[in-house]
């Protein structure tokens, strides 16, 4: 095993580069606990939900940051609030349903109640009964608010942060990422479905996978076969300056041949394969820019996907060092006509837990988790496209994966990695 130059939690890093990753980063309990402090409760913006999940004043919605349960509310003035979903008295869950509507949040255990801003406004029997019992005179409700988060909305996405130091969400995202989020979330949303995929692997393995443009046309042969996307299309990768966020996009260019592929002789070259009902792939260029695929990630846990007319938001929720939940929300827009709705429903076959071009992503992280058992002293290699984490005008690269590790190490170790 290579010599140690840096250490965080129980993980030893062989260098200050991001080209070799110790596998213990996916298995070490101490590291996982430290991630809660340095990343999830650190200077980051964590995706919480769509603003559309909170349609009116009094709406609340339950989400999660790291393993911490969070409740998001729209208060009576219509502004958004977020706090830990935990009563300030003895710590019971405050909201017991996924979502709902309320003027106050009242805990079932002893009926302490909180307004939608998270402030304590009622303590059952505070003065006791018949002047017996109750809370001490010096008890002050203002000292017992819920644990509040900062919350900001961007293009209908709601983000929360435990940190006072993190800049505004737009500054955090940067203009490149912001503009490509707005591009997709162009108008009022309509939610068309939800589900949750249970991933038997560390959360980072999924986030890397979403950033990994190298695997797209190889692991998912459906892509190549049906010319939905391939590396020899026009396209590229944008990585923000922090490294944490990225966009991968591509445009079909049917003129290009498959020879590059044949010459690679890899599993995915299979052109005689054809669909009996090709309507699955009849898509429209709803953005008018010819971009057929845009995968965008925001550190540490959001994926925004546009694949033809299939649009979805994925939230990555860690549940233990070795398990993760991927919360899918499938969306369209208020102004979709019936044809567009049916188109989105058909194309939804491409994505999600049963998606023709995404089901593999639910398993491949677990393939790594199982493969490193017993030998997590070894290293993973991230060298495709160089050693840096800059934007690149092609997709045969792991630049955005390196970007992830650049951001991750800077937060975990407080260093400035060589990337």
């Amino acid at each position: 095993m290579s010599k140690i130059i840096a250490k965080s939690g129980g993980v030893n890093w062989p260098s200050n580069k991001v080209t070799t990753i110790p596998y213990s980063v996916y298995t070490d309990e101490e590291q996982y606990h430290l991630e809660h402090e340095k990343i999830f409760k650190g200077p980051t913006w964590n995706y919480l939900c769509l603003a559309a999940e909170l349609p009116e004043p009094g709406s609340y919605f339950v989400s999660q940051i790291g393993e911490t349960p969070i409740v998001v509310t729209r208060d009576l003035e219509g502004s958004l609030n977020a706090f830990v979903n935990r009563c300030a008295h003895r710590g019971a869950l405050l909201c017991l349903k996924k979502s709902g509507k309320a003027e106050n949040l009242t805990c079932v255990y002893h009926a302490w109640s909180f307004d939608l801003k998270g402030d304590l406004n009622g303590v059952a029997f505070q003065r006791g009964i018949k002047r017996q019992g109750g809370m001490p005179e010096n008890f002050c409700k203002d000292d017992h608010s819920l644990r509040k988060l900062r919350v900001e909305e961007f293009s209908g996405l709601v983000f929360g942060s435990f940190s006072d130091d993190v800049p505004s969400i737009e500054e955090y995202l940067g203009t490149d990422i912001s503009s490509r989020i707005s591009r997709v979330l162009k108008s009022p949303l309509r939610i068309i479905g939800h589900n949750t995929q249970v991933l038997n692997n560390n959360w980072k393995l999924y986030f890397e996978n979403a950033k990994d443009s190298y695997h797209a046309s190889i692991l998912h042969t459906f892509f190549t076969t049906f010319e939905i996307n391939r590396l020899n299309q026009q396209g590229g990768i944008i990585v923000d300056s922090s490294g944490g966020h990225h966009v991968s996009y591509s445009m079909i260019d049917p003129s290009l041949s498959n020879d590059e592929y044949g010459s690679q002789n890899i599993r995915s070259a299979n052109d005689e394969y054809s669909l009996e009902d090709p309507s699955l792939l009849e898509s429209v260029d709803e953005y008018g820019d010819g971009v057929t695929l845009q995968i965008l990630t925001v550190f540490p846990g959001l994926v925004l996907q546009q694949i033809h007319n299939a649009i979805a938001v994925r939230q990555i929720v860690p549940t233990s060092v070795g398990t993760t939940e991927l919360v899918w929300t499938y969306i369209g827009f208020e102004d979709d006509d019936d044809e567009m709705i049916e188109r989105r429903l058909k194309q939804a076959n491409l994505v999600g837990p049963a998606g023709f071009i995404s089901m593999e992503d639910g398993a491949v992280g677990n393939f790594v988790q199982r493969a490193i058992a017993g030998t997590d002293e070894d290293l993973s290699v991230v060298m495709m496209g160089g050693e840096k984490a800059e934007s690149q005008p092609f997709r045969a690269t792991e630049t955005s994966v390196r970007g992830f590790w650049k951001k991750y190490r800077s937060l975990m170790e407080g260093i400035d990695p060589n990337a």
Partner: protein
Amino acid sequence: MYEDNIRLIENLMADYSAAIDNKDFERWPELFTDDGRYRVTNSEDYKLGYLHGSIWANSRGMLRDRVSALQEANIYEEQSYRHIRDATRLITEDEPNGVVTVSSSFIVVRTMHTGDMHLFVSGIYIDRIKLHDGIALFEERIVVCDSQKIDTLLAIPL
């Protein structure tokens, strides 16, 4: 309902489970009408009236394409299902069109090639069945899973 129709429906149900559990996947689309509809959803989405399905088809062709993808394109570890169904309940009967709506509770146990086995899904089938010339076919099968969670991936249809 006539005894023989009941038998036709029960056989369709049994053929469906057997086709999937025995990995006789090509048989699966043939149990639907040409314009047969199939959708895998969950009780939450179903109650909210969301139309999305993890698997969504409105033609036998789409079902056949699902089978080809399963066999030619997609990567997943070897695995098998075991369906256990409760009794079939009649919901409505539309004599003139020979269409019957029935439902039945079910569970699916999934076993991986590694031998790891677990209760994968519980839910209810809501079926519109076309009875014609002594043949029963699914005009629509909606698979409503009780949970919105799916472990790892849903490769084989439910």
